[in-house]
């Protein structure tokens, strides 16, 4: 179980992630959605201790199965307890190494014998719907979807208790997407890992996640089950986002839009960061930041 509490990530004096708390239980998939600059990826990089550049954790805690994920511990836990799948499989694979060897390496580093590692690698390939003959291939000899499945095999090789998938299918074609998501879901179920699926794609999250966390301008604005958040969103931002999404079959015509643009981290408005774009604005919205209470961070919803 992953428990994140009051996480703050800063870069210089900019608060990129501003007090985020959430939990993911074993076997559960949390879909983390939000637009660019909302802090969804930064939140998960911070949890995994993978922040780079000027970004650093400035507050809060992340606890995995009772162990606090401190920088020192993360060095040992990453890989073993935390598995990753990023958007571009090329960044996770060594172009000069056969993919079977890359999967075995993950196991070898953590003390598995050579013959046992080879046997497990073959099993893992099968688990991600790739035949054992693929083990001898180099990454460039595989398609994008196959490469991403190799990355999934590596991510689950050590049966992690936390799996983080950040836009795992964004770079793939829609028919390939479906297959990669199926493999990811199966791998997740078989390992029982608490899983965070970071995505901008609400449709994808609707199909793959149990619960959803919506981020806006560095904060969580709404959390709940998929049915709750997508079916009856309560935060004005989530509600507007659902409405503005084009859908197959609604026919040609203008979409309901959210005016304005999501703010850049360094120019977030005070109070509730969504208030300049919000259809329901109370006096306090511009002054006080609403806390996340009962799954929603909105003064108007609380005053109802």
């Amino acid at each position, binding site marked *: 179980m992953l428990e994140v509490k009051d996480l703050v990530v800063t870069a210089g004096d900019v608060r990129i992630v501003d007090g985020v708390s959430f939990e993911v239980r074993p076997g559960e998939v949390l879909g983390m959605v939000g637009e660019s600059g909302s802090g969804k990826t930064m939140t998960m990089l911070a949890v995994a201790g993978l922040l780079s550049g000027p970004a650093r954790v400035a507050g809060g805690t992340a606890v995995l199965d009772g162990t606090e994920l401190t920088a020192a511990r993360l060095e040992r836990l990453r890989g073993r307890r935390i598995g990753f799948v990023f958007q571009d499989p090329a960044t996770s694979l060594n172009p000069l190494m056969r993919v079977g060897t890359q999967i075995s390496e993950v196991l070898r580093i953590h003390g598995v014998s050579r013959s046992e590692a080879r046997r497990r690698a073959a099993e893992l390939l099968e688990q991600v719907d790739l035949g054992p003959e693929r083990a001898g291939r180099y990454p460039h000899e595989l398609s994008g979807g196959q490469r991403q499945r190799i990355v999934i095999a590596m991510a689950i090789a050590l049966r992690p208790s936390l799996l983080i998938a950040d836009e795992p299918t964004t770079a793939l074609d829609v028919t390939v997407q479906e297959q990669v998501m199926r493999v990811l879901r199966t791998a997740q179920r078989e390992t029982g890992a608490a899983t965070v699926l970071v995505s901008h794609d609400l*449709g994808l999250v609707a199909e793959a996640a149990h619960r959803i966390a919506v981020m806006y301008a560095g904060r969580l604005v709404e959390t709940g089950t998929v049915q709750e958040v997508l079916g009856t969103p309560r935060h004005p931002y989530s509600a507007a986002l659902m409405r503005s999404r084009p859908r197959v079959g609604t026919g040609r015509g203008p979409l309901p839009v959210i005016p304005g643009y999501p703010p850049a981290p360094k120019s977030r408005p005070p109070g509730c960061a969504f208030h300049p774009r919000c259809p329901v604005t109370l006096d306090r919205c511009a002054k006080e930041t609403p806390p996340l209470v009962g799954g929603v961070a909105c003064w108007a919803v609380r005053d109802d």
Partner: protein
Amino acid sequence: MTEPLLRVTNLSKSYGALRAVDGVTFEVDRGETLAIVGESGCGKSTLARCVARLTQPTGGSVRLDGVELAPLSRRRLRPLRSRFQLVFQDPSTSLNPRWTVGEIVREPLRLQDVRGDVPGLLSEVGLDPELAGRHPHRLSGGQRQRVGIARALALSPDLLVLDEPVTALDVSVQAQIINLLLRLQEERGLGYLFISHDLAVVSAVAHRVAVMHAGRLVETGPAEQVLGRPSHDYTRALVAAVPGA
């Protein structure tokens, strides 16, 4: 019988043995959007580049208002260039980073040696004319795509070739740009050749849809028919794969 705005007949583009576009035929009328959908590598972007004459087709015909473009030299093509314009997927790579927004939008006018109203174009696409002095990197993705559209409109074209124009944008910004394109089409009577892999986006903008697979069009028809009651197996697979549809 009047000529359609764009008539593409048996268009082909080969790279050696690879037939990227293989005998494609379609029409686009004034005020109409034809969406070409398909997955990466199906040839839809090559098709867009052939129509916009960024690359020379290897066969077939492209007629704009009845005028055959295929045999024209670059110089003879130039006066016709103003009639069709291209809008790209990623505005950050298609806008010169060293130029200001004003210079970018003015460039096509300067090339054709005509006068134009840059502040008027910026407000038409929903940008504050004050932004004319800014450089693209100081704009958001949505604002940059609006600059790309303003530049495409500068010479009052009849046809826009839009290659994945909202793919790189966030959901809330995507809806804004879709609405902008719908409004401009209505106000200016523009024909759109709209290239996209995203069936939901296509559903919001297209009158007609053509599905492209391995260089060929496998199904063409009214949007509600192709997306709602697809007849080709490949189209059915595409529609079924849309998550959360």
